[in-house]
């Protein structure tokens, strides 16, 4: 428990038992110290590092009962300002006189920033050898090891630290992130399990942590566990929309892996609808604030991505109407729709006329500009199918077609047009395999 509290770097602490008077005296002591360092801290809080450092120098030359504390603060400010060499010199000057842990820690940090990794490693290892409960040293050591390219050792260091101080959510999370990045899903799910368990009864529950845990479980093949975790996460109130969205996307994949195709589609449709609803809300707000241009741009993007979705298009029109811009709204929707219809027609005509290369270029550019537009992406895949049927199958073109199809699948995996193009691409891929075999 004490370790957990010390992770929050309190200004001071008292050992039990203490009476009212002792507490009062200690608070006065802390306050006096704070007042003495007040000018420095004010400048630091204003992010004016140069002034803060200058205040330190003034205090030091004028003489202060808190000389060492000021030296310590100055070194920290130098680090914050990126003056690692100067900070290092200061730390080493302190260490020449007394062996102080904060100075050793600061020295190690500077060595790390200066790229002197072997020296930094030795510093943090020595600190841990002196006291194996200095948790900050483990965090640093892991950072050093990762910079040295020893990701596995870095994770081992953090794992050791989480055993010694099992209540630090932050450290479990860091370990989980590292493990996810390295593809060690067993370790990642273990770490995120701890995060989620520790958060359960706290005010800082996070959807993102649940999603990471589910991601690791999904990768380990535990889709039932992943689904349970995701649903638990999505029940957390007040989460960020982007986090809810990520959880929803993963839930679609997990349901699909569990063979629950219909549920997966329902989740994806709901997500799309939520996405549209929140974009419409945001546009309303922008209009209300007079940010007409930005609101229009947002709605135009929505129309571009969904130019065949009549329900959405009429919702877009009414947002313009409510803002007293009904005419502009109708004009924008019609123009954008026409533009897209013309574009698709032009591409299809080119392909029919045998100008497949030109059609491919046209759809390729359009798909890059509108990655969420289903029609454009389907056409881009379709034109590649035509090209390969005429001039032979190429792996790079197959891959490109897959990319366009994946964009459509994430929105509408059961759409009939999608399934038709999907089948053609699969046939081409199969023919390529058999011709090679």
């Amino acid at each position: 428990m004490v370790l957990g509290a010390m992770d929050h770097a309190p200004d001071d602490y008292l050992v039990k038992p203490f009476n009212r008077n002792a507490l009062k005296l200690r608070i006065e002591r802390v306050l006096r110290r704070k007042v003495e360092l007040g000018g420095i801290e004010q400048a630091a809080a204003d992010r004016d590092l140069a002034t803060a450092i200058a205040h330190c120098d003034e205090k030091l030359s004028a003489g202060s009962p808190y000389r060492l504390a000021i030296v310590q603060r100055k070194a920290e400010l130098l680090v914050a300002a990126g003056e690692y060499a100067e900070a290092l010199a200061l730390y080493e000057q302190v260490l020449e006189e007394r062996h102080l842990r904060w100075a050793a820690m600061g020295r190690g940090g500077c060595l790390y920033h200066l790229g002197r990794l072997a020296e930094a490693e030795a510093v943090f290892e020595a600190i841990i050898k002196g006291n194996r409960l200095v948790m900050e040293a483990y965090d640093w050591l892991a950072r050093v090891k990762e910079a040295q390219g020893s990701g596995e050792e870095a994770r081992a260091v953090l794992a050791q630290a989480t055993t010694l101080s099992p209540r630090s959510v932050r450290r479990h999370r860091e370990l989980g992130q590292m493990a996810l990045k390295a593809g060690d899903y067993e370790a990642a799910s273990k770490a995120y399990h701890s995060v989620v368990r520790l958060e359960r009864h706290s005010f800082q529950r996070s959807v993102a942590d649940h999603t990471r845990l589910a991601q690791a479980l999904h990768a380990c093949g535990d889709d039932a566990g992943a689904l349970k975790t995701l649903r638990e996460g999505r029940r957390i109130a007040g989460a960020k929309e982007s986090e809810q969205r990520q959880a929803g996307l993963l839930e679609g994949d997990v349901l699909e892996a569990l063979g629950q195709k219909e549920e997966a589609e329902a989740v994806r449709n709901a997500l799309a609808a939520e996405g549209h609803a929140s974009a419409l809300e945001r546009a309303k707000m922008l209009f209300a604030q007079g940010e007409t241009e930005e609101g229009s741009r947002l709605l135009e993007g929505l129309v571009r991505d969904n130019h065949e979705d009549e329900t959405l298009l009429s919702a877009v029109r009414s947002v313009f109407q409510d803002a007293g811009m009904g005419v502009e709204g109708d004009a924008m929707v019609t123009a954008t729709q026409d533009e897209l219809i013309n574009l698709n027609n032009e591409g299809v005509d080119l392909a029919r006329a045998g100008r497949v290369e030109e059609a491919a270029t046209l759809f390729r550019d359009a798909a890059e500009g509108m990655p969420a537009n289903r029609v454009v992406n389907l056409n881009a895949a379709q034109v590649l199918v035509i090209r390969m049927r005429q001039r032979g199958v190429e792996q790079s073109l197959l891959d490109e077609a897959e990319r366009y199809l994946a964009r459509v699948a994430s929105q509408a995996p059961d759409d009939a047009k999608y399934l038709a193009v999907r089948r053609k691409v699969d046939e081409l891929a199969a023919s390529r395999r058999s011709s090679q075999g």
Partner: protein
Amino acid sequence: MSDHDGGPDFDVVLASTLHDVKNSIALLVSAIDQLGLRVERELPELAPDLYGIQAEARRMNNELVQLLSLYRMGRGEFSVSPRDVVVVELLEEALSELESVLRTRGVAVEIDCDPELSWVLDDNLVLGVIRNALNNMARYARDRVRISARTEGGWLVIGVEDNGAGYPESVLRMAGGPARDVDFRSASTGLGIYFAREVMGRHSRQGRVGRIELANGGSLGGGVFTLYLP
């Protein structure tokens, strides 16, 4: 640390039990603080006895704190964290918890320290050492305790003195020699002295290491407990 398969790690069981007992005693000490305010008002003649009981409870608490610190030292889980300390504030804080027992026993306290004097030391640990010495003196002082601090040739010298009968010969012998000479059987203060020497030994500056000295006499003619901090 267990030598037996499957059995509990006795060191850990012992340490966590000590920790628990220590916290119980801490509650006792705090409860007597509350009770003391009422007793002083309503039954003042009982106050010295009550605070005497509290001083004993505090002694138990101190000893357990020291024991646990030694345990942590043995496991490589112990650090000193020296920082700038305004010395007079430290002395006042050391006295604050003993104020009641000293006052009701009729012991006069004087502090002699330059209010500007500041030094680098681990105040929580040094506080423990000073309090331990003071707690003893609260029991043995006739009617005066003096606590002083000054600098001397690059050392901070903190003295705690009383006008009691002084330390017995066996205790005086323990303070000076090497740590292993501390004889825990011969006197109840063995642990306190051992702990004080461990704490002082972890305060060093440019090769100079802190120490304690015990003597009899001094300015009040009783026990003299002196800390030397580099």
